[in-house]
């Protein structure tokens, strides 16, 4: 690119030939006002607010628009002469004559010294800057908007002013409209749908959540314009370090390790099969996870607790043990729900003026400060009812004025049947093992119990190890637990793993199997049979080999080998015969 020498407001500078005046001025911090300019699109030059005076050495001068006037060698630009200011001011006054006094125009008016526009103002909010049309055309590529009609009747519209089918609902037009003429409107008119909440609604580039590691944004393909229309790609133009890679996709890597810590967590119980609670059927019946999302300040409602129609609830019922301690679903207690339910009621009391009802079987506040917290909750005026809720019904059933839902239960402490009118019901759902836990465990040769959680080597003495050497467990995958316990367990598992790695030497059981190469025929029967995957096949020698570190001396391979090539050390046939002879003697 050739460089040319130009002067802007007296300042000499060198820029690439063909650069537009506006960009050149920006690079030396000279601000020229604009209305219809957007840096990543072809300059439109419709508003004429960026007018500047261009002069040549030979003496001619004319008014040009800075956004699309290419520089040439010897050009002189003046951005603030009386002629320029007058041009900008008159243009703005004419614009204000047909538009409403929106903030962006007021701001410019102040800058140019207009206190009273000479031709008054009107009601139209569109300033015909064309940003919406051009973004939809050039960057988004959906072509859903265009200018219609001519001259003073020019307007922005969709074809025939009907809802456009090409619109991909990206919201770019609304985002860039400087006056708010374009708004995004909910098509279905439901304010929020609790079950469909996620932490960041429509943004295409988001941090997965605040505490994500690594703490870098990612592109959400479902919302990204580029993956819908092939256009945009503004992020890659803006990124100073060139970090955007649209072709990136999940890759798999093979890593050789000696120890694995399994911390795959839990799933939330889906209360839909429990028809009596109406989850998924009645609005405002939500699970605890959904309530957490709504409560999060970085969430879709900004932390406000609202019903689906957007109003604040007047009364909330929190139902304990949904899916836990239940003969039909999970017999175990999920351990954490009582405490988080109390936490919910505390948050509700803090953020709203709603009544809170806790319907529990037992209040399990077992840990450090937990019982004290329970007492505090009671002091806050939360209504605790001992009795698992029987049913949630919509309140039209009984024409109650307060509350859209009715919770039916037996209050066992007073021995009465109660019907409690509420606006929202939170179901404290059980923690359950991951759906694929069993299959997943098979890969590591660890098994799951009847309750679905992974089985530890010993419930008291080896809670983080498994029967497979080198595989450790941490967190809720081993059993429902809360955060302090999970963290502690994680540390323990890490310590065990480090112990393994730091040993250098490993002390093992002396009883392990050995394969005699001379007799091994390479049939590989033992390879698959070993429950500890301790036998592998040596391709070079064409014999099987036992990894003595993994072998537990169970003897399965010894019995299975058709050639009798495998010997269990310290447990040979001869030794067994000798023992038998000794006993019989």
């Amino acid at each position, binding site marked *: 690119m050739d460089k040319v020498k130009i002067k802007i407001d007296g300042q000499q500078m060198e820029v690439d030939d063909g650069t537009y005046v506006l960009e050149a001025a920006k690079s030396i911090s000279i601000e020229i006002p604009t209305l219809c300019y957007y840096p990543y699109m072809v300059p*439109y*030059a*419709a*508003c*004429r*607010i960026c*007018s500047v005076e261009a002069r040549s050495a030979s003496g001619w001068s*004319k*008014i*040009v*628009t800075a956004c*699309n*006037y*290419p520089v040439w060698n010897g050009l002189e630009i003046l951005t603030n002469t009386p*002629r320029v200011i*007058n*041009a900008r001011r*008159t*243009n703005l006054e*004419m*614009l204000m*004559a*047909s538009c409403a006094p929106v903030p962006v125009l007021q701001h410019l008016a102040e800058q140019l010294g207009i206190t009273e526009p*000479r*031709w008054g103002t009107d009601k139209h909010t569109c300033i*015909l800057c*064309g940003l919406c049309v051009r973004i939809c055309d050039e960057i988004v590529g959906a072509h859903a908007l*265009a*200018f219609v*009609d*001519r*001259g*003073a*009747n*020019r307007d922005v519209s969709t074809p025939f002013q009907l809802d456009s089918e090409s619109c991909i609902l990206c919201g770019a037009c609304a985002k860039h409209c400087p006056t708010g003429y374009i708004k995004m409107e909910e098509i279905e008119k439901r304010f929020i749908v609790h079950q469909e909440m996620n932490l960041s609604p429509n943004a295409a580039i988001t941090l997965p959540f605040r505490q994500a590691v690594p703490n870098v944004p990612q592109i959400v393909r479902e919302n990204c314009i580029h993956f819908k229309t092939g256009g945009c790609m503004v992020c890659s133009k803006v990124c100073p370090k060139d970090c955007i890679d649209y072709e990136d996709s999940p890759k798999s890597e093979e890593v050789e390790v000696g120890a694995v810590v399994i911390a795959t967590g839990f799933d939330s119980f889906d209360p839909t099969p429990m028809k009596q609670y109406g989850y998924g059927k009645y609005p405002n019946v939500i699970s605890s996870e959904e309530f957490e999302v709504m409560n999060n300040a970085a969430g879709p409602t900004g932390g406000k607790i609202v019903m689906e129609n957007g109003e604040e609830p007047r009364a909330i019922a929190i139902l304990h043990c949904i899916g836990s301690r239940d003969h039909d679903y999970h017999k175990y207690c999920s351990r954490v729900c009582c405490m988080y339910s109390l936490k919910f009621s505390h948050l509700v009391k803090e953020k709203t003026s709603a009544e809170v009802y806790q319907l529990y079987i037992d209040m399990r506040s077992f840990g450090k400060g937990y019982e004290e917290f329970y007492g505090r909750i009671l002091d806050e005026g939360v209504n605790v009812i001992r009795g698992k809720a029987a049913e949630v019904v919509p309140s039209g059933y009984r024409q109650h004025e307060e509350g859209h839902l009715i919770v039916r239960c037996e209050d066992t402490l007073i021995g009465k049947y109660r019907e409690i009118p509420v606006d929202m019901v939170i179901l404290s759902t059980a923690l359950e093992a991951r759906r694929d836990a069993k299959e997943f465990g098979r890969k590591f040769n660890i098994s799951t119990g009847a309750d679905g959680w992974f089985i530890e080597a010993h419930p008291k003495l080896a809670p983080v190890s498994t029967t497979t050497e080198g595989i450790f467990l941490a967190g809720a995958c081993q059993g429902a637990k809360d955060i302090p316990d999970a963290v502690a367990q994680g540390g323990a598992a890490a310590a065990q793993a480090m112990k393994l790695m730091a040993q250098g030497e490993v002390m093992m059981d002396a009883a392990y199997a050995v394969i005699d190469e001379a007799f091994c025929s390479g049939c590989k029967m033992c390879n698959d049979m070993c429950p500890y995957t301790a036998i592998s096949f040596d391709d070079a020698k064409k014999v099987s080999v036992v990894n003595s570190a993994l072998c537990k001396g169970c003897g399965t391979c010894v019995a299975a080998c058709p050639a009798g090539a495998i010997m269990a050390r310290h447990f040979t046939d001869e030794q067994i015969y000798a023992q038998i002879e000794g006993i019989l003697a």
Partner: protein
Amino acid sequence: MSTNRLNSPAELAALKQRLEKNRNANKTVVTVCAGTGCMACGCEAVLKTFHEERKKDRLENEVEIKATGCHGFCERGPLVVVHPSGVFYQRVKPADAKLIWEQTVKGGQLVNKLLYRDPQSNEIIKHEKDIPFYKRQMRIIFGKNGFMDPTAINDYILLGGYLALATALTKMTSEQIIGDVKKSGLRGRGGGGFLTGKKWATCRAVKVDPKYVICNADEGDPGAFMDRSLLEGNPHQVIEGMIIGAYAIGSHEGFVYVRNEYPLAVKNLTVAIKAARDYGLLGENILGTGFNFDIVISRGGGAFVCGESTALMASLEGKVGEPRAKYIHTVESGLWDKPSNLNNVETWANVPLIIERGADWFASIGTENSKGTKVFALTGRVNNTGLVEVPMGITLREILYDIGGGAPRGKRFKAVQTGGPSGGMLIVEEAQPKSHGSPVAHGDIRNENEAVNLLDLPVDFDELTRVGSMMGSGGMIVMDEDSCMVDVARYFIHFLTEESCGKCLPCREGLVTMLSVLRKISAGKGTMEDIKYLEELSQVIIDTSLCQLGGSAPNPVLSALRYFRQEFLAHVVDKRCPAGVCKDLVSHAIDNTCNGCHACLKSCPTSAIVGEPKRLHYVIQDKCIQCGACYQICRYNSIKRVKRGEGDKLQERAREQWRPPLKKVTAEVS
């Protein structure tokens, strides 16, 4: 492959020779002008009559009937010229056609009542070339129209058509052609007046392919119809010019962007293109030289702004006709971002002449900086309206008086508007008023002996720009003392508000603001501030508009303020419209010269005029809606358009004398 194909310049020359040989120079040819103007006057019925008569008399082989392109004297249409005598008949009706057939074609006699009679000398003039309207013109382009059927390519070849093309393709290089065009000094005839040779050279120098040549036939100026008549009457000359230009520039694709409101032009052009293709003059291997070039016709969608070159190219591409900034010229990056050379219809039509007759010949016509001729559409309050082709440098006086025949109905010329909505109003009032005693002359309260007029202005590009107007595409609208300059300015601004594309702020909003101010002044509510606004706004609109539609829009207003400022002041200060046009400022009244002919009474739509036959009439001021029908009809100039409210002052005697009709009284018998 057509057997008509001309595979070399030699074959073209041979064809011409053959046509000349076969032509009987003594054969009677009846040419009837079939341009759109004469069509509107009923020339088709005239043609039909001739054909019927010829069939009846079985003279198909002896007499040729030719429907030609526009002859230019549109005021006197339908026009019939009988060859070889060259007798010129005007205002021919179908019944007259019969007379012509009998008396002139068969009988060799003249039909006197159809001949042109000079209004000044009352003399009968038989031949076209002697009629003053034609005598002072230099019809190097339009002259061919009268001899050609535009749909017959052989007629054009007979007149020497396509010989320039043959010369250019075989005997000249591109550089030589461009050099010739440069030497000739030809400037764009569409309005910009840019040196054509320079434009071609710049386009040729751009090393990008493909290149396009475009013919701008989107003639949008109100009152302009030169390009229309050229395309209707002689499309081949335009085509020939485009082929020569394409060869010079290195283009192989051409477009004619013609406005959709010109169906006859589109039709004749389509026929011409097909005929040229058949002859091998368009398409592949033109005249066997290996040069390929073809033309596509593209029709406009009804927008004046599409006459602007970048908007035209956008429209050609199929997009909305919106202009873009011309900081990067279209010769470098135009249609589909490729080098595109755009010229007006008349510019292209001049090219074959330059090649054929030489650049020096062309440069000998006109003034130093404006060479050649220009076709003007002379319209408005002038006796001879129509298309006139005159050499550059001719004065307005000659056009208005010698060619135009002066002002009709004894009025005074006041202004000439050139260049359409982008041009200006030029004052052409005479120092000696040949008025008819109107109490209110011009709004211009100037010293009557001072000849402040531009009648002797030589018409050329630079002179017109110097005095605040522009050549434009050639519209020339003549106005007399009955035209109000405020009203005319308002008219042009209104036209532009409707045609503005709306993209840029100053044109879209500024013109609407100017229109509302002008309407205010016209309604008598204007202030001195308003005149200041107009001038200030005009300057900003000129400075900041994106294209020349907006950039030249204030010209009518600025030129009106320059030459007719007193008229504006009369509207603003006196609340009076001197020309009597602005309805809110005018009262129609009848003065004492009225002779009671009753004509106005009959024409008044609101029955506001009362009076007995042969006695003074007067206008009831409350009932009058200022429509002006009485003013148009009065042959004694007794209707006066005075300042609003002063009507009754003129009519005092009439009102005194007015005796209401006797009421019928029945006697009551008690």
